[in-house]
Every structure is written in C-alpha cells, then in structure tokens.
C-alpha cells in the first residue's frame, strides 16, 4: 500500500501515456483527462510513438513479447517530467513490473527504474501532486465509483478517486456492497474463463445498480469496458432503449462537473 | 539412495538464499503491552469468557466450596482428580464426604479407557500458567494429570494461580525457557471444544470438553 506522497512543486510539463485502450476505445476519456490537466495550467505532452504498456502479453505469460513492447515505451519520456496514466492497471505495469521485466538488461533496467519513479495514476496525480480541488458546477446527482484492482492493490490509490468525488459539492457518492471486489475483467481472463468472469461482472453490476446511483465512474477503462459492456448487453436483453447504468471515466465526469 | 537422501540432495542442490534471522522479540516489544498483573487477569478473563469459558475468582479458603457449587449447578456428582497433586488431594479429602464421588487417574489408560470415555463427567486439573493476550491456559500434562484428563470428560475444571499470567505466548516460552526442553505434550487451551463446520454455526463440545471452568485462585476475591 503506498503512503500518502508529499506534494512536490506543481510541474509545468507532464507526459501523458494514454494506454492502448483509451487511444482506440475510449479516446474521449483521454481527451478529457488532457483537458482537465491543461486546465490546471500544465503543458501536456503526448508522445506520438506510444502504443501499449505491454501488460496483456505480460499477464498472459509472454514476457518476451511484453518486453519488446515495453522497451519502446521506455524511450518515449526523455525529459524528467511526470508521466501521467489514466489507468491504475497500466500505471501499475509501468511502475512496478517494468523494473523486474528488464532485470537482466542493466541499461534498460536503469531506465525502467528511473521511469518507475515518474509514473502517476491520474487521480493520484490530481490529488497528491496538483492538490486539485474540483469546484462543482453541476446539478445534484448520485454516482457510484468502481476502483480497479490494480489501482487499489498495486498502486494503492483507491482513496484518491473517492476524494475527488467527495470534493464535488453536489455529488453524492453511493456506497456499494463488496466495493473492493474485482469486476471480473482481468484481461484475457474474461476470454479464457468466460463463465467465471461473467458471474463476477453480473454480481458487480448488481451491486452498483443496487445503490440507486445514476452513473458509475471509474479511473480504469478496462473495468468500464467490462461493466458497461455487460450493462448494455443486459439492457438489450431486457429491451431497454436507454442505459440503466451509464458510466464514464472519472476524468470525463470531473471535467463536466467543473465546466463553468 | 533412500527417499531421505534423494530429498535432501534435491534441496541441497538448490540455491540456499539465506535470509537474516527475524527479530521476534523486537516485534513483541513494539506491539504488545506489558501489563500489571491485575490488567493481565482482566484481559485473560475477558478473552476466555468470550470463548465461552466460565471463570470464578476463588481464594485458597473457598475454592473447594466453589468447586462443589459449580459441580452442583451442573448436576455432576463424579469428579476425576489427580491424587498426586495438592489440589487433587484436597479435593479427595473434602468432596466425597459432601456427596461428590472422586475417581483418580491411578493406572494407565488401557486399563480403564471405556470408563474414561463413558463414565467420567468431569475432571479437575491445574494450569501451569496462562496467557492474557488470548485468554489461554497453559497445561503441561504429566504422570499425575495425564493428557486425556483435560480432553475426554465433558466438563473440565481448571485451577489457575492468578499470579501465573504472562502477557503473551512468546513471553511465556521465553521466560520459562521452553526451548531447552518440552514435556511429552504441552497444550494451550483457550475455551471449551468447538466447531463451526456446519454452516458456520458455532457449536460447543465438538469432541473435547463441552464446558471449561476456570477457578482463578488469588488471595482476595
């Protein structure tokens, strides 16, 4: 579990590592995260050569393939700026697994370790580096927050998303049962063990819906893809035209709430 | 090559990866309070009562009367005692004339196993000491108070000297130098026998004593 970090002087520039999921499937979330950061007076750099952190191969047992992809990302952040990632899972990969992935390659290992210290999950960066206190301009609403397992257990940043939502004056954060339980995504797990994964996402959706919240927000698009994909499937099965539980990335939610 | 040699050979072929010895004493010093005897008694009592044991404060003058009262309240008229111990001898002197039949563990179990299992409703033993942290009795069964005495009878009554309390299990073993020699069997007992194996429902008296009674012996009540 990570300890609360000391707030460093607010950086003028950061790198944004979008993740492949955001780039290809949730670009709006990425754009909103960038805008949110820029609104704090920060220059956001998006290295165009970025692809994927390598986690899918890594967790599937293909470390060589993961290393090949990770090696590219290692070269993309030459300046000593923070690297902000809108996903606890990808941030966890870069922060905690890159150094071990390159354990046998002294040069890259040193690069990985240096990079590791600069990796920030988005909500952690907003709260603990920027001391961002969102000013709420929205209407009363109730939301429920899903925190990814990587954010919670690997990055230890499960409290930052809650704090950001807690700072929004007109937003009520609903309490769900089994909050810390996995949504059942787990990358290739959802394909290799579809029955168990389906049972997990069913239960997760039920818990989220049982709160009566209007929407679910999360700082991880992998979980959102799973939860919202199941919610949409269920809506379709049950003949609902409008989503029974819409959801979005926390960056999009925060940006909208803070818009004047 | 024997299985022993094969196993050891495989283990020895592996890298040892030696690690520094952990400082167990430092952990306990930093994380467990050292309490006064009264505090330890209080903590011990709270914990063991939570585990469903019955505790009575007694004095050297009244413990036998309390023992008889406990037996009477449970309608027990037969008690297994250890004649070679002072408390067993005292019970033998006093209880039979008051209508409680006392049997003794005076021969090897093989000679009376069936009687032990079927006709011994209660037993009295002493505890060597106790542990406040977890509400635990330390028993060292011996020739006078053999192992089954604290296990087979459905009611087990234990005499505990209230000055013999340790803060922790660690403190007990360190203070008494257990590493230099342990008896055939030593036991920590923290309540009556229990199980939650059926639908997580707690039930007492699974295989050992259904009831555990502690007579906490001190100069004052």
């Amino acid at each position: 579990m990570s300890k609360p970090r000391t707030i460093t002087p607010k950086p003028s520039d950061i790198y944004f590592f979008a993740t492949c999921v955001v780039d290809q499937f949730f670009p709006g979330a990425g754009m909103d995260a960038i805008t949110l950061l820029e609104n704090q007076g920060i220059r956001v750099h998006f290295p165009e050569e970025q692809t994927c952190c390598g986690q899918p191969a890594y967790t599937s047992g293909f470390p060589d393939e993961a290393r090949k992809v990770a090696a590219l990302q290692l070269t993309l952040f030459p300046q000593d700026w923070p690297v902000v990632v809108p996903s606890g899972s990808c941030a966890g990969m870069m922060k905690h697994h890159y150094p071990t992935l390159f354990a046998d390659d002294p040069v890259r290992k040193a690069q990985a370790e240096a990079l590791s210290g600069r990796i920030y999950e988005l909500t952690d960066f907003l709260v603990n580096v920027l001391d961002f206190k969102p000013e709420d301009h929205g209407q009363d609403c109730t939301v429920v927050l899903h925190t990814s397992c990587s954010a919670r257990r690997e990055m230890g940043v499960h409290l930052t998303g809650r704090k950001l939502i807690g700072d929004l004056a007109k937003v009520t954060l609903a309490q769900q049962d089994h909050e810390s339980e996995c949504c059942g995504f787990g990358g290739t797990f959802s394909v290799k063990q579809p029955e168990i994964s389906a049972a997990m996402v069913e239960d997760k959706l039920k818990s989220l819906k049982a709160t009566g919240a209007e929407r679910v927000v999360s700082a991880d698009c992998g979980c959102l893809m799973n939860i919202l994909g199941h919610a949409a499937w269920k809506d379709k099965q049950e003949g609902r035209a409008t989503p029974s539980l819409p959801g979005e990335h926390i960056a999009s939610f925060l940006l909208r709430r803070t818009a004047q | 090559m024997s299985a022993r040699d094969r196993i050891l050979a495989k283990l020895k072929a592996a890298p040892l990866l030696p690690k520094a010895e952990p400082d167990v004493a430092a952990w306990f010093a930093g994380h467990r309070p050292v309490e006064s005897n009264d505090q330890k008694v209080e903590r011990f009592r709270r914990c063991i009562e939570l585990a469903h044991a019955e505790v009575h404060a007694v004095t050297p003058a009244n413990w036998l009367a309390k023992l008889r009262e406990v037996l009477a309240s449970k309608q027990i008229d037969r008690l297994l005692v250890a004649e070679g111990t002072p408390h067993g001898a005292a019970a033998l002197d006093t209880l039979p004339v008051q209508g409680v039949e006392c049997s003794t563990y005076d021969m090897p179990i093989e000679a009376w196993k069936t009687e032990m299992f079927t006709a011994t409703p209660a037993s009295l033993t002493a505890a060597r000491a106790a542990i406040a942290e977890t509400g635990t009795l330390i028993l060292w069964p011996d020739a006078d108070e053999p192992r089954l005495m604290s296990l087979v009878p459905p009611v087990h009554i234990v005499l505990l000297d209230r000055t013999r309390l340790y803060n922790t299990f660690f403190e007990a073993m360190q203070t008494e130098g257990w590493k230099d020699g342990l008896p055939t069997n030593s036991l920590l007992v923290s309540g009556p026998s229990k199980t939650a194996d059926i639908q997580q429902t707690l039930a007492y008296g699974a295989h050992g004593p259904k009831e555990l009674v502690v007579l906490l012996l001190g100069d004052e009540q």
Partner: protein
Amino acid sequence: MNAQPIHFKPTEGFRARSKAVVDNPFLRQSFRGAMDFLMSKRAAQFPDSEELESLRLLGEQIRQYNLGKLPELLVRLEENLTRNGVQVHWAETPDEANAIILGICQKHSAKLMVKGKSMVSEEIELNHAAEAAGIGALESDMGEYIVQLAHEKPSHIIMPAIHKTKEEIARLFAENVPGVEYTDNVDALIQIGRNVLRQKFLEADIGLSGVNFAVAETGTLCLVENEGNGRMCTTAPPVHIAITGIEKIVEKLEHVPPLLSLLTRSATGQNISTYFNMISSPRKPGEKDGPAEVHLVLLDNGRSQAYADEQLRKTLQCIRCGACMNHCPVYTRIGGHAYGTTYPGPIGKIISPHMLGLDATANMATASSLCGACGEVCPVRIPIPELLIRLREESASAPHANPSMRGQGAGHDGLTSAIWRAWAAVYSSPALYRTVSWLGSRLRGLTPRRQAGWTSVRTPIQPAPKRLRDMIKERN
C-alpha cells in the same frame, strides 16, 4: 465403514465444473455468504493495519529465513525427534508415504485409523490407499467427517464442508448414522457426530494427524485446532502417525507465536484456536496415557521442485490458513470442488502444479483475474498473482531442456504464440501501430458481433471512430 471418497477428478473438466456452480444461484448465494462471513471475521481481528502489516512482514521473514535453511533444519528436526523417541520417515511421493503409513498400520494389525484434519493426507489420498489395504480410515474433524459420509472431498482447506447446508447434513446423518432421526439443529447434529466419533477414538488402533509447525530445535510437532479431535487422534490410540510437507518447519520455538497468531486470525478470525497441541515425544515411562509410538512422515511430493527456484520457492511460505480462498472472487463463484485438486483457490493454483505437474493443471493459472486480493491478505506475503503469471509463462512457453517445472510447455500452442509475436511486432513499432489502429477505427463497422467468451454477457468491443491521437491532432 463407509466407502471412501472418490479419486481426484482431472483438472480438464474445470470449465464445465465451474460453469455448473456459477449457474446454480443457490450455491452462488451460499458460497458468497460463507466467504463474507469469513472475510468479516478476519477483518475484525486486524483493526490496526500497521500491526497487521508489520506482523505479515515478520511472518514472511520467518518463513523465508527457515526455508533458507531447509535441508539443515530437516536434519536437525530428525535428530531431535529421534532423540525424543519419535520415528521419522521420508517420502518422496504419495505412494511412498502411503506405503510407510500402511506399513506401520500392518505392523500393529490395525483395523481402524482415526484421522485428525490433514490436507497432506488428502494430498496422498490416504483414505483410498487404506481402504485398498483393508484398513478403515475415519475422518474425525466434523467437517471432514461430513464430507467423508457424503463420499466427497473437502471443498475448503479450513472449512471442509463449507459447500453443504445444515439441511443436507441433516439428511446425510439421518440416512447414514444408525438410529438417528432427521434434525437440522446444529447443536444436535454436532452431538450426533461427537457420539459416533467418541466411540471410534476409544476403539482406534492408529491416530493420524497433520502438522502445522514442526520445530527443529526442540523436536516438536505443533497442531492447531478447535474441536479436540486432533488431540484425540494424537493421544487416545496406541500409535500416532503425523504427516507433513517438508516445508512446514521452523528452526526455533520462538518462530511459532507470530505464525500461530497470523494463522488463526487469518483463517477463521480467531485470536487463537481453542487448542494448540505441542507433541515432543511418545509416552514416557511412568506416564499413563498418550501413544506408545509416534511417527512423523515427511513428504516431498513436488515441494523440492518449487524449492529449487527462487521465485517459485515463495509458494512454500504458505501456512495453510485459507484466507486467499476466502477473499478470492473466483473461489467465491465456483467453490472448492470445481478446481478438482486437493488444494483449491489461489494457493491451490500455485502449489498444485508442483504436485501434479503443469500438464495436469495448466488451465488453473488462467482462472484468475489477477485482482490481487489473495496476495493482499496472505499472512506470509506470498506474491500469489506474480506466481500465477510465472506459471502462465511456464505453461505457455515452448518446451525446452532443463525446465524448472514438470510439465513446462504443456499449454504451449503455436498459434497463440504466433499471435502474441504478431501483437508484439505491431505494438513495438509506432508506424505499424499507427496503421493497424487506424485501420481498426476505419473498419469498425466490420467488428465481429460475436467475440469469443466476451459477448456471452457483454456487447461487442468496437474501436472508436477516432483515436485519441486523431482527436489531439484535430484540436491542435
């Protein structure tokens, strides 16, 4: 004597078995309730997270320190136990262990063996071997007794009958215990079990138990339990046989209190178990009870394979508390039997491949979302998710010489490897990635409606019309 439990099912049917449980709302609810109960009991024991984390760290250090000296400690344990009068036996395989135990039984012309809870005896399928040799092996832990009556295997290492309701147990008793009428009163059911088993403790020729910690410096076997059946098995019959894996050893007695505290608090949320039983010798002259003979069987069964590798060795730190399964969202959905192995849940996934080979257990490591709940609660800090990833790698990689695991490469298939190689080629090349991801967004209309596994309960995944990089370009 009742028929003995069936052999372990091969792990091939894992998906079918897990689906059967997942599709049963009653079982789903029952496992969820049981796991919620155990999780809240554990949480109540650790109100202070600093204390918990420092104790876990100490537990990890103790286990790693002792594993670091394992060969030396085993020899010392043997010396000290032998000096105390305990007979020590070594078994490399389950067959050897069974032969040793049955040999002792036969020497004593034993007809009935009462068993305290021992997962290692399950691991070697002792009940089966005993039955084949004409020796009755009766489980005496209430949960194990129930499971044996039902001709099943334990579905949890601490709560063997956690998959059964009291009504099922009531029926089981009414049908199998002579003279017993149906009752679903739990106290009454426990009394029925108590009465049956007391008679067996009285009659048994052999008592068998597991071991929680074996202390090298004193030559002591430690057993943790609540019911008292472990004490019965190790005290009432004339012969006591203990069986343990070679890893359950600590050098010093002082290593025991932290591990005991971690074990009982993590397992069942108790600050201590009802009994902690320390056995250092058989009955001595002048003593009036206790077995005349005590034996210890030290079992390898693949543990030395895990030991040989620095990372895999961490598997052996385990003290068998079961907290990983109590907190596992997969175990909670499918229960213990679906795994088809002696040890279910996260610990089962990482230990079973060493016992049975990766070929027999290849798909177990994939049955995890890597959520990390197991590693978070493990009292000795075994990095279970990391080990699962390692096992996936050992399984997926092409078979090679001198593998560190039996069955390495069992899950290897050329197509999957080729797909990952192609994936790596695309994602390690900015130009290729740009092209492929651009094509993905252009051709999003061609996204398949059915996507293996995913679309059974979800809408298809479809690339967005514009990538983030396109949106950034447009904005600038």
